[in-house]
């Protein structure tokens, strides 16, 4: 008989990169007491650790999922763990020497733990693992929101995020408890097997019902994770928190919880609804889920874009933009729940997730690069004259904004197009309407992005920006720019990869 120790080694084999990150993060907290080093040293060390983790990341072909294992690894988690590590590296580069030395160790420690959290969300194969990994993203985020600046605005932002996050955690747990109850196992693989068995047995009988508690579970989980991806009506905190918190944590907040949230949503959705091979529409749960996602996507898109029209504060504007983009991505998720377009919808969602990460990271990276001690960029008007003082940066920023608008020749266009076509081709009237709504919203959203472009190019600054952009920021900005264009001109490989992800067993 296999010993407990061997079993543990075996079970943890596939999450070694994350264990490294966890170990390093915890180590930072301890080291902070004894070592006083500059922000840059911590950043270098963190970057090395993330690189090491990336090297250690198992390849996507190795599919490890003995039923009922705690973590699993397949092409899906390979992709999202790669994305998580990439975003983490970018965030480390952006915070290179911008962190006060007194809290640099805590800052980078939290960052490493958050990266580990995102990765574990996508590697989780167990409700408890999913829950703990989501908390591993949330709890360091509370600390980060408060760490860099402790003025009134940051306190209020932390308060709002913390309390609403605790509230949403309760919703999540309530949903998870019913999923556990349905099978008596916390394992997602078991749940998936049970639903699949049910579908196979009941495929002949049209009137069979799944227990309504599964529906409750799904709605609760969508609500709780909708909070993390800022989907309406769970998005309210986002504008306030973004506005109040310092720029670096906001960058993190606009990327990491979204990735984690969509990874979690996909985990749950793929376990309870999507059984490739079986007709997903046969399950009444799938129909309800696609209805739920329909309304959430609709409200998110309109809320984000309509409110975005009125914003002067850049971070607030980007919060609304993030809400609208969450809406677009949920269109993909909802499309993935309706029959026939499972692959297109979900692959569209993942494609959009990459593009969203690149373009949002690009915009935030430029904003971070423009901050300096004597001149902060807070409002849209503060960007005036950027084309004079930093012409290249202004053009790059315009590219990111055009990508957010969804204009060709940027990847934003293809990303929106994919989701639109997927929604349109469900041939369900509701989703066709949603596709049209998406087109209308893309048109509305263009207005406020264009305003930023206009201010950058068409207005002169009262006091021009004079900050020099550092090289780590340049790396991030140029990489994002590269992705934004590369995915437009060479989308095929990425798309094929995204399609492969959705084929998880």
């Amino acid at each position: 008989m296999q010993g407990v120790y061997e079993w543990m080694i075996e079970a943890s084999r596939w999450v070694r990169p994350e264990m490294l990150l966890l170990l390093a993060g915890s180590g930072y907290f301890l080291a902070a007491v004894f070592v006083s080093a500059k922000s840059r040293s911590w950043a270098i060390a963190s970057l090395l650790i993330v690189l090491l983790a990336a090297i250690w990341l198992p390849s996507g072909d190795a599919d490890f999922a003995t039923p009922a294992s705690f973590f699993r690894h397949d092409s899906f988690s390979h992709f999202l763990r790669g994305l998580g590590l990439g975003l983490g590296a970018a965030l480390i580069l952006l915070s290179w020497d911008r962190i006060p030395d007194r809290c640099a160790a805590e800052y980078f420690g939290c960052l490493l733990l958050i990266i580990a959290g995102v990765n574990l969300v996508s590697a989780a194969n167990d409700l408890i693992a999913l829950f703990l990994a989501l908390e591993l993203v949330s709890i360091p985020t509370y600390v980060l929101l408060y760490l860099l600046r402790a003025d009134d605005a940051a306190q209020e932002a932390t308060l709002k995020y913390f309390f609403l996050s605790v509230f949403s955690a309760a919703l999540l747990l309530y949903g998870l408890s019913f999923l556990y109850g349905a099978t008596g196992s916390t394992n997602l693989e078991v749940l998936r097997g049970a639903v699949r068995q049910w579908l196979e047995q009941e495929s002949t009988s049209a009137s069979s019902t799944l227990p309504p508690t599964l529906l409750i579970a799904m709605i609760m989980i969508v609500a709780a994770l909708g909070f993390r991806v800022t989907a309406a009506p769970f998005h309210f905190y986002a504008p306030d928190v973004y506005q109040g918190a310092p720029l670096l944590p906001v960058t993190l907040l606009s990327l990491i919880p979204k990735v984690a949230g969509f990874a979690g949503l996909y985990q749950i959705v793929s376990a309870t609804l999507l059984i490739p091979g079986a007709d997903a529409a046969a399950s009444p749960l799938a129909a309800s889920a696609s209805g739920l996602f329909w309304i959430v996507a609709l409200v998110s898109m309109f809320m984000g874009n309509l409110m975005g029209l009125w914003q002067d504060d850049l971070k607030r504007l980007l919060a609304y933009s993030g809400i609208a983009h969450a809406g677009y991505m949920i269109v993909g998720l909802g499309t993935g729940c309706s029959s026939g377009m499972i692959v297109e919808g979900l692959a569209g969602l993942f494609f959009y997730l990459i593009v969203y990460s690149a373009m949002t990271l690009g915009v935030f990276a430029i904003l971070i690069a423009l901050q300096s001690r004597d001149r902060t960029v807070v409002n849209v008007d503060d960007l005036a004259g950027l084309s004079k003082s930093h012409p290249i940066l202004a053009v790059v920023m315009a590219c990111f904004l055009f990508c957010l608008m969804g204009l060709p020749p940027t990847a934003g266009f293809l990303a929106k197009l994919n989701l639109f076509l997927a929604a349109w081709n469900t041939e369900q009237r509701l989703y066709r309407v949603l596709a049209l709504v998406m087109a209308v919203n893309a048109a509305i959203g263009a207005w406020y992005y264009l305003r930023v472009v206009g201010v950058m190019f068409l207005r002169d600054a009262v006091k021009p920006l004079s900050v020099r952009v550092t090289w780590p920021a340049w790396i991030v900005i140029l990489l994002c720019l590269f992705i934004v264009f590369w995915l437009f001109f060479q989308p095929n490989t990425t798309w094929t990869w995204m399609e492969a992800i959705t084929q998880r067993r």
Partner: protein
Amino acid sequence: MSQAILPNYLIVGAILFGLGAIGFLSRRNLILMFLSAEMMLQGVALNLVGFGGHHKNYQGQAFVIFMLTVAACEAALALALILVLFRNRKTLDVSVWQDLREANQDPVQDESPLLLEPEMTPMHFPRLTPAGLRPDQAASPEEAATRG
């Protein structure tokens, strides 16, 4: 024996969850809000324990223990945060934190004056004595109030 009792656990869990949600939405004291959220977690815990008993395994109870751990983490952070917030504004009212909002919107204020109820006369609470003072020499609550 204990299988049939499952729905009763779920019902009690749902009620605690709902009452906790109401408390979270309506009570303005930061601490009570947090405790209400914890009460929602108690509802979840009842669900999990009920299901665990029903399925005759300990995974549900293990889940509750992890939940408890996370709740403890959140409580520690909540405590720290609430202390900091109180130090800043000298109140535990959540409604004073509404500076971040849509531009051009007026702040929400309490309209109606409080009804002075006879039984609402000042109550005395046990208080922590400030450091360096003997308890019997510590200031009375009224004096503390005037000092702020």
